[in-house]
């Protein structure tokens, strides 16, 4: 592509497609760039390669049938999506789930946040050529997946919650497994920090690269770790607490400059905060029911179903029709690993959702990616793409 520079010089730019299936894009994204040497003079991004019509699909089945689809949004931390959706529907019913369910959900969310950050950080470091960290983090993640497997029989797409509670209670020995894995997580984070924190190559590659100011981050609607990397100390768990987060002791990790270095480091430190929340939640985990007793949401006991006509009808209605939230429009969100994950649900009082709009946190990050890497080196763009943690599942829906 032949161009005249603003100074009037002739310049031959090379156009290059990165993606849609390039290892550095960690998924199916396409970045189309005009290069002068290795510098990206302009870049535009395309998405949609993983678009599967999530929102249209949700209208075709019942509310419970939406749950497995939510697993496929951010598949690195599927449980947070499950919980986010259930929390939104429960809000429509004005139902509060039992104490044990809330504490279990906090544990699962924070562990999911940790494994999401593990994947994001270590694949990001692989993009920079630091492969060792990958083994430290993926081994640890595997240990969490073993807990998931015991808990619900699934590793990646868990569908662990139900509207009004959980799929089932935690297995005996769950607490000690989680305690054990927390130690492993802290050890792995310490090891990776030892490898990168004072590593000249890592610092040179990430410091002051693709800086995003606080104003820009807010205007682009950034939330979560990326917003905090730009120095904005906002976290839904602190500002608009849900599930009793205000009663846990933890710090919001905030960056200084909003560069790639901050975005990577924030995730490392957030894992330690999450581990601390999980420890506190484990101490609070008391025996009790995990499902609400509200007959609109929860199946009655089997015993009652066989002996009580009302319970039998209740069971049939819930199995064949599912839950029926009151008509209306409701938005509910929580702090997912990537930022604010929201569900805007429109109900017409029927058994199927009338319309569900998902607010995926990484959509906003990817919208800023093109302008972010203009003027930067192409190798830095790959490192930055990792640091904003684009998950195509929730980006493209």
């Amino acid at each position, binding site marked *: *592509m032949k161009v*005249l520079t603003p100074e009037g010089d002739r*310049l031959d*730019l090379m*156009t*290059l*497609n*990165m993606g*849609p*299936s*390039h290892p550095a*894009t960690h998924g199916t994204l*396409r970045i*189309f760039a*005009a290069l002068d040497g290795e*510098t990206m*003079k302009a*870049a*535009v991004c*395309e*998405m*949609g*390669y993983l*678009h599967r*019509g999530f929102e249209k699909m949700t209208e*075709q089945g019942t509310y419970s049938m939406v749950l497995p689809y939510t697993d496929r949004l951010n598949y690195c931390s599927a449980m947070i999506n499950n919980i986010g959706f259930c929390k939104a529907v429960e*809000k*429509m019913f004005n139902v509060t789930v039992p104490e044990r369910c809330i504490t279990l959900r906090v544990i699962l969310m924070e562990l999911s946040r940790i494994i999401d950050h593990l994947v994001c950080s270590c694949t990001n470091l692989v993009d920079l050529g630091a492969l060792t960290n990958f083994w430290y983090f993926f081994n640890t993640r595997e240990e969490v997946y073993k807990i998931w497997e015991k808990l619900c029989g699934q590793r990646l797409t868990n569908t662990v919650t139900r509207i009004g509670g959980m799929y089932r209670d935690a297995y005996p020995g769950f607490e000690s497994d989680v305690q054990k894995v927390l130690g492993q997580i802290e050890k792995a984070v310490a090891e990776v920090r030892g490898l990168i924190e004072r590593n000249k190559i890592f610092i040179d590659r990430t410091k002051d690269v693709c*800086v995003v*100011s*606080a*104003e*820009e981050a807010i*205007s*682009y*609607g950034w*939330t979560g770790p990326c917003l905090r990397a*730009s120095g904005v100390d*906002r976290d839904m768990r*602190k500002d608009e607490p849900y599930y009793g987060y205000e009663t846990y002791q933890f710090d919001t990790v905030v960056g200084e*400059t909003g560069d790639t270095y901050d975005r990577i480091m924030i995730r490392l430190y957030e894992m330690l905060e999450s581990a601390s929340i999980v420890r506190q939640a484990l101490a609070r985990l008391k025996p009790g029911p995990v499902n609400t007793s509200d007959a609109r949401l929860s199946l009655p006991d089997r015993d009652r179903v066989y002996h009580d006509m009302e319970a039998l009808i209740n069971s049939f209605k819930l199995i064949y029709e599912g839950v029926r939230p009151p*008509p*209306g*429009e*409701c*938005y*509910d969100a929580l702090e997912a690993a990537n930022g604010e994950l*929201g569900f*805007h649900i*429109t109900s*017409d*009082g029927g058994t199927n959702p009338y319309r569900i709009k998902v*607010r995926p946190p990484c959509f906003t990050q990817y919208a800023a990616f*093109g*302008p*972010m*890497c*203009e*003027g*930067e080196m192409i190798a830095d763009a790959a490192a930055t793409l990792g640091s904003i943690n684009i998950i195509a599942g929730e980006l493209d829906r």
Partner: protein
Amino acid sequence: MSSIAGAGISHETDVRSWKREPIKPGKSDDQLEAALTERFGLTRDAKDRWNLTLVLAAGKAKAQLHEVVQFLRDSPDLRFDMLLDLASIDYLSYPNHRGPRFAIVYLFKSLVFRHRLKLKVEIDEDDAEVPSIHDLYRIADWTEREVFDQMGIVFSGHPNLKRILNHHEFVGHPLRKDYPCQKRQKLSINDPMVDQLEARLKHYGYQVVESGEVHLGAPIAAKHQSVAEQGPVDDQKKANAHGAVGAGGV
């Protein structure tokens, strides 16, 4: 950091200009309602029984939307500085629905005060057009593209109102209630995006003399199960010959 980055993402204000302090208690839903309904003639939406949704009627959107949103963003005791998302709804088959067929819900959040607001803009079917607010929030550029793509609502003044999730050859708007969910379409080659790239270069003051031969990128096999052979033969050859970086999995 090179100089051009300053144009892509502006660094005029230092990041430290964000004053770190705890979020302030915001206005309650009733206070927000009182502050806004009279000023702009908005009404509270009875459909939202959980939070506050204010409705901007169909006839007023064109003249007033931009002004209302700017007020929400800049008013010192509102400061809705974040546009979270746009949720579009097609009421075609909604039971007992009266009023315009479409609505867009603008989800706002303030990072200064602890309050949120949903602004619902009603849209008539025969005049499905609202003004763009991409100049107020940068994210609106993409969220508006998504609403256009999925629901077919036009945003006047938008600089690049292209499809974003669906293929650029896709016909129709899938989230409309009259779009059949089983419908399949044959789609061929992906969007070259040369126009978008040239627009970015022009934004920086470059003048494009010759677009030249542009690497077209890999044909999309995954997208909507369309097969690569659907594309025009010439385009296929071009794409294969140049072997875009992604295609070979370098």
